[in-house]
């Protein structure tokens, strides 16, 4: 059996390893188009602040890891897929045969149609190469404009601030991380950043970017203001890398369309990770989540199916954790709530603490928190097991911080007076 995996991010690497664990003799080719060994984008911000060396970003530390597992790593770019011939074509024209193919090509930063976005001083922050470029230019005292305060923008924000740059963040929505946190939390994060010396402009758009002869950039905003900048970083969102599949017959929408075996419209082709429009646990709809734990889920489950072990994907819980200059925020599932559901929240604006829980009947379906670093994962457990909370829901409505007590109370018999109380 010949397995080919396109994309050497977390989904691709975990899939390759899962294949090997389940089939000692199959052929596994892992094709990635970046020059480095497989690395984690999650680790890039920590590379930017010199917390780790470049090899600290690598998904697997041992240099011989892939060879040891008899996984062939190919550094090349896949130009196209021929499902009929069961081949993929590399940039040089060479063809690689497959019996089963996994598309794990991830996503790329989108470039909004803004004049000047292709100027040399404008960067994305997506690859290790981008990281190096930013690290080169964005040093102490540099004026940096960051476009986009979504998840990616916010995660590199700390790295930039720690480099000692003069930072302005521009977000067109009315708060930071609008697709991860609600109004209350998004605005608290904004206040927090401002208190740390970052200039944050929400409900603001960049209209154009210009550059003078010395290389200095001018960012023009829709409120008429102009900002001078040495570097502009664009972090306005990502889109699945599906373009090379055009004409292959493999159906894609926001990402590659798959069933609950992560199988695409062609039975021998699977998809995983950011490129995959997989099932969302909470909505039961198929959408691109583009988060690390989902990539790991996908990689494992797709590989199981590729080697003939029928495995269903029940859907991944959408979840995010973000550290914005020391303020840790998390969100899970249907954090925005559901029709007919109930919710509870506690806000402490002075201390930037926030917790919000969303229920449907007596089941937790979504949650958000600021400043919660202990036992936060149990929110996932409560959501994903659809645990019926019973009276513990009322306890949570009283005090939503008691999430561990609710979990333990609902799963263990608590106290010999339990029946009584």
């Amino acid at each position, binding site marked *: 059996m010949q397995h080919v995996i396109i994309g050497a991010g977390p989904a691709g690497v975990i899939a390759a390893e899962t294949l090997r664990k389940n089939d000692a003799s199959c052929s596994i080719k892992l094709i990635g188009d970046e020059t480095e060994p497989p690395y984690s984008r999650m680790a890039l911000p920590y590379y930017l602040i010199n917390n780790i060396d470049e090899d600290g970003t690598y998904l697997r530390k041992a240099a011989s890891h892939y060879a040891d597992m008899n996984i062939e790593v190919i550094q090349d770019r896949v130009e196209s897929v021929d499902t009929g011939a069961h081949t993929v074509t590399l940039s040089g024209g060479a063809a690689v045969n497959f019996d089963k193919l996994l598309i794990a090509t991830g996503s790329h930063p989108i470039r909004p149609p803004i004049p000047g976005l292709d100027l040399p001083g404008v960067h994305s922050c997506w690859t290790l190469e981008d990281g190096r470029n930013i690290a080169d230019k964005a040093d102490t005292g540099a004026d940096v404009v960051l476009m986009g305060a979504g998840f990616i923008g916010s995660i590199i924000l700390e790295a930039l601030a720690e480099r000692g740059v003069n930072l302005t963040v521009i977000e067109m929505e009315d708060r930071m991380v609008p697709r991860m946190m609600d109004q209350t939390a998004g605005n608290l994060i904004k206040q927090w950043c401002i208190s740390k010396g970052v200039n944050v402009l929400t409900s603001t758009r960049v209209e154009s970017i210009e550059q003078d002869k010395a290389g200095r950039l001018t960012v023009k905003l829709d409120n008429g203001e102009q900002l001078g900048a040495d570097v502009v970083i664009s972090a306005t969102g990502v889109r699945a890398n599906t373009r090379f599949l055009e004409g292959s017959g493999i159906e894609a929408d926001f990402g590659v369309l798959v069933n609950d075996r992560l199988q695409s419209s062609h039975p021998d082709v699977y998809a995983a990770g950011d490129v995959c429009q997989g099932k969302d646990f909470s909505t039961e709809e198929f959408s691109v989540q583009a988060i690390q734990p989902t990539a790991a889920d996908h990689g494992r489950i797709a590989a199981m199916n590729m080697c003939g072990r029928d495995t269903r994907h029940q859907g991944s819980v959408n979840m995010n954790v973000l550290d914005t200059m020391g303020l840790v925020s998390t969100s899970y599932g249907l954090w925005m709530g559901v029709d007919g559901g109930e919710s509870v929240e506690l806000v*402490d604006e002075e201390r930037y603490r926030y917790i919000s829980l969303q229920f449907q009947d007596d089941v937790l379906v979504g949650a958000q928190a600021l400043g919660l670093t202990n036992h936060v994962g149990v929110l996932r457990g409560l959501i994903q097991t659809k645990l019926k909370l019973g009276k513990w829901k009322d306890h949570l409505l009283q005090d939503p*911080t008691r999430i561990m007590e609710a979990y333990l109370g609902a799963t263990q018999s608590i*106290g010999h*007076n339990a029946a009584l*109380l």
Partner: protein
Amino acid sequence: MAWANNVLRVNLTDGTTSNEPLNMEWARLYLGQRGLATKYLVEEIDARCDALSPDNKLIMTTGPLTGTMASTAGRYSVVTKSPLTGAVACSNSGGFIGAELKAAGYDMIIFEGKSPQPVYLYVENDKVDIVPADEIWGQSVWAADEWLHKKYQDPLLRIAAVGRAAEKGCLYAAIVNDLHRAAGRSGVGTVMASKNLKAVAVRGTKGVGNIKDPAGFMQAVNDGKQVLAENAVTGQGLPTYGTQVLMNVINEVGAMPTRNMREVQFEGASKISAEAMHEPRESDGKPNLVTNAGCFGCTIACGRISTIDRGHFSIENKPQYWGASGGLEYEAAWALGSDTGVDDMDALTYANFICNEDGIDPISFGATVAAAMELYQIGAITKEQTDGVELKFGSAEALTWATEVTCKGEGFGQELGMGSKRLCEKYGHPDLSMTVKGQEFPAYDPRGIQGMGLTYATSNRGACHLRSYTVSSEVMGVPVKTDPLETEGKPELVKAFQDATAIVDSSGLCVFTTFAWTLEDIAPQVAAACEGDWTPESMLEAGERIWNLEREFNLAAGLTAADDTLPKRLLTEPAQTGPAKGHVNRLHEMLPKYYEVRGWNKQGEPTDETRQRLSL
């Protein structure tokens, strides 16, 4: 060193806070907690000041072992001048806040002055905020606790607070921490409220380190834990029955003060005893006792967690009391029960719950109700004062009513809140107050246990069993059995217990360990943790030093040898039943000798020689 070497000073008048290093010279002489904080108090306030004025200071203090893994090392004390007695107050509490304060990096907090408006103190490691307490002033301790936990979104925030009784001036108001642990005696909560300080909320995530000899310390700690586990009292009696194990024992000895100490045995004792707490109730088949519970680091776990029968008249329409909470300790069961003649355990448990909820000392409160009941019986108090309530001995309804009004500081509760000395004086019968230096007696009748008479008479904080628990020797035979009806040797025994207890209280450990531990067990733990020469002998001497320091404070405050006495009833009315039948307390046989072994003159003052010997 196990000290944090850091004192937090909070000036409530100015709303400012500052840090200063611990006075290590004093620490070597007084160790920590009770001894060391008393030294600070003696040095910093005028002993003659009004306890409820801004001139008084209030010190929340830990010991060097507080927050370590030594068994029971979660204790903290509140040291101040008492409004109830005018003497030094040192109230010791378990729970978790002491260790939390230490883990936040402080040996003690010294509160000075008086805030112009109600405030609480929030401490999170180095972050210290004085915060307006508008939302919780006028609320119970439990309500304040819940509000603070939610405000800070932190289930592990440790909170000490005063309730409505303290705000209304009840003179024996407690500072309650962790919902049902309390620095209970001598009105330390009243002092806190007088400073407009509602609560102290602490979160410490630094931990306690700097152990002098870590390996030696862990060895000593594990040895100590083993001794506690193998001892019948600390290994079995206390975890199973709590301090309530004493109810039937002391009743049989004939030293159970009953109905304002008119009698020495209570016919209802077995109904409110530890054994009764284990008995399934008729109504729901559940016992009163849900579980035993430990304070921070405690491997004894004598704490009681109880429920009240939901059908009981006191709570049938109050679902907020249907859950479990802190149950009856022996002292509370005695004061609320036998001293008032009430043998309804659910009523006592309810009274105990709300003593915790609003922060009053159940010993002083129960004894004050007992005095009021006697005043009612002789007609000195009538229904006019009690809103029509029949304040009769044995009435559970009267007890629960009295508890409610005192906790809220309403109506007759204001008078009960004065304590029995002032109440009995007001109604013309000062002799009916069972107090020493204005503080009510605990649960051992000194006619049946002679040494306790001397203990009470000479206790530096007014009547108290925890200053020298000679019951241990006179009843339980620890460390040696002495005859409870004999006075010979008791002065020496009392002194030894007083000195040893003072240093144990100064270490951060719980005095209940001494049912099993001697200073031979404790000194190695202190010595391995702390700089200084800590042997059983040097610790005993430090204990003696602390005792004399407290005495000096009281003398400076205006107390004299005349205050080292007992109520007339105990000296002249013989016990009517039991082994002590016919006995009064023979204090006069013990007191002169006590002064002598203490190295004090006939006026009860330490001689110059004693002062010099103890480096005072």
